[in-house]
């Protein structure tokens, strides 16, 4: 069976393009942060691109996702434009959240991106609520809740999965198991090795997926999303991956051996996908280079947009605390 069997060439290339855009965006963010251009803190998605790209490729534009502190990749994959994301990271008035949110709170409700979230596992119940709402409104929208291996130990994981399972809601819970929560290996805080077994506590399917293989992330997401859309209830996908960078940009990474990082970097999801696409004659070297070049241009344009945009005016700081001021 061909790895890209269930995909059209356009889709396979689209997933590649999304991954590349995320990689280039995040690499530039890293540079910008190190150059002191960005306020706040940034958590980059480098190394995990196959997950956001594969999962979001299985979603419709009006489906929902909730995201995490490591949310740029999700935002891009769900269809947010790069300019407003970058401007948000700069704290500019043209940012996706008008500079109010920053890196950890990137959101665009118009494409179903219900927000990055600075609270670990904070999005899971919100995804369940969005799915409940979609069911009630009869729209067949699916909600994906992204979270990390650290988030799986939070009480809200349990409460959200139980609720979603009981009501057979159209949610897919996607655990991005990158092996660490901040500085701490998941093995030190988590009672089971294979995180997918946690699904059994709710009577729902739990599947461990090679999260660096875009074919697998897409395939499993497609199946889970299909089930969710058809009233078959939630799924827990445990996507095994690795973050190439530190927890945040600037992390000294004392907690993991550089040999481990080097070894894991070999499984680069983008290079791997490029090999697959090349093997299956869907991509040529020239095409690949064009995608990277295009992404670089696009990111440069986003940076330009952000840098040329004005900061919000301090006088507007009290706007939008409430919708209605009585």
């Amino acid at each position, binding site marked *: 069976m061909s790895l890209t069997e269930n995909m059209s060439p356009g889709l396979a290339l689209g997933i590649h393009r999304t991954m590349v855009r995320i990689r280039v965006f995040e690499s530039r963010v890293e540079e910008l942060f190190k150059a002191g251009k960005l306020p706040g803190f940034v958590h980059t998605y480098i190394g995990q691109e196959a997950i956001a790209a594969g999962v979001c490729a299985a979603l419709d534009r009006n489906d929902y996702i909730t995201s995490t502190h490591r949310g740029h990749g999700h935002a891009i994959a769900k269809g947010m434009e790069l300019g407003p994301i970058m401007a948000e990271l700069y704290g500019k008035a043209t940012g996706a959240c*008008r500079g109010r949110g920053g890196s950890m709170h990137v959101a665009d409700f118009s494409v179903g991106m219900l927000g990055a979230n600075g609270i670990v596992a904070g999005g899971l119940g919100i995804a*369940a609520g969005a799915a409940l709402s979609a069911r009630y409104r009869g729209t067949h929208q699916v909600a994906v809740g992204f979270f990390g291996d650290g988030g799986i130990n939070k009480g809200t994981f349990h409460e959200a999965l139980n609720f979603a399972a009981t009501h057979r809601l159209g949610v897919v819970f996607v655990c991005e198991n990158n092996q660490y929560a901040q500085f701490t290996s998941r093995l030190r805080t988590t009672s089971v090795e294979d995180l997918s077994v946690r699904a059994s506590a709710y009577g729902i399917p739990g599947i461990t997926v090679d999260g660096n293989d875009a074919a697998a992330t897409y395939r499993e997401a497609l199946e889970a999303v299909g089930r969710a859309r058809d009233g078959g209830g939630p799924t827990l996908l445990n996507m095994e991956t690795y973050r190439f960078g530190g927890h945040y940009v600037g992390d000294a990474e004392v907690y993991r051996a550089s040999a481990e990082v080097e070894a894991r970097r070999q499984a680069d999801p983008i290079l791997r996908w490029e090999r697959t696409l090349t093997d299956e004659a869907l991509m040529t070297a020239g095409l690949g280079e064009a995608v990277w070049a295009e992404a670089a241009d696009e990111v440069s344009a986003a940076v330009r947009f952000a840098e040329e945009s004005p900061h919000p005016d301090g006088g507007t700081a009290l706007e939008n605390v409430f919708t209605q001021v009585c």
Partner: protein
Amino acid sequence: MRRMSFGQATVDAMRSAMREDDRVVVLGEDISWGGNFGQFRGLLDEFGPDRVIDMPISEAIIMAVTVGAAVTGLRPVASMSFVEFTLGAMDEIVNQAAKFRYMFGGQVSVPLVLRASDGVLRSSAGQHSSSLEGLFTHLPGLKVVAPSNPADARGLLRAAIADDDPVVYLENKRITAKRGPVPAGDHVVPLGSAAVRREGSDLTIVTYSVMTLHAEKACSSLAEMGIEAELIDLRSLVPLDLDTVLSSVARTGRVVVAHEAWEFGGFGAEVVSAITGQAFDRLRAAPVRVGAAQAPIPFSPPLERAVVPGSDELVAAAREVMGLT
């Protein structure tokens, strides 16, 4: 005018809102059985289980689901029965519900109501007797209301559901069963408007919720002593109708601020500070606060009575502010 209890007022407000707008749903533990105080009785029959949703004992997820529903087109009402249970959902209330609109740059509204019962009711002890408005009022992004009679209960809940922002609706348990007149029709009380319950020229009593009832009694006692108190029932704590308070204080120059919640660091401190800040020259005496003593609420009735204030404490406070002690 109809006569109904607070509980019936809730049902009545919920029913009007749910009939008018099918985006309104209600979620909570035991809700299809009417909730802990019967405030949702009958809704299941009329609106069915898609709109009257029994939740597991998972307060955090009740709130998170409510937020998720609110930002995707519904207008959910979440019930937490005892206000102490909201402590298990504080992240969702404070970090999510209250902040979403602002943090996301105004692109979304969070039209939800969080309803909880607070206060002391016949020795419910430390984990079922608190009043926590002092927490909610401090945190930006939440509106907070606390009615003292069934008409306001009906009207404020209706306004809260119609409001596009998260509103915390707090109802004192001791008065939930009390009955009172409610105007006919779709009675609404706008958020942010205080009510003057009694006029008087000697001092101003500012309060809300159950304490308004104690204050009415205290006002009668004070009147017998020749002291005429003006009584302001805030009804809405955020937004706060400070104008009504200030215009009364400008006349009386003396003020007592009272609530059942703990006095130390309570909402009364905000009211006193705001009055002092804006009407210092009108004050003829230091404002006096009345609130619970700084202890968890004890079980045994004599202890509970010692910690939680009633009309006696209000009378004493009024006499103090009048310089009569």
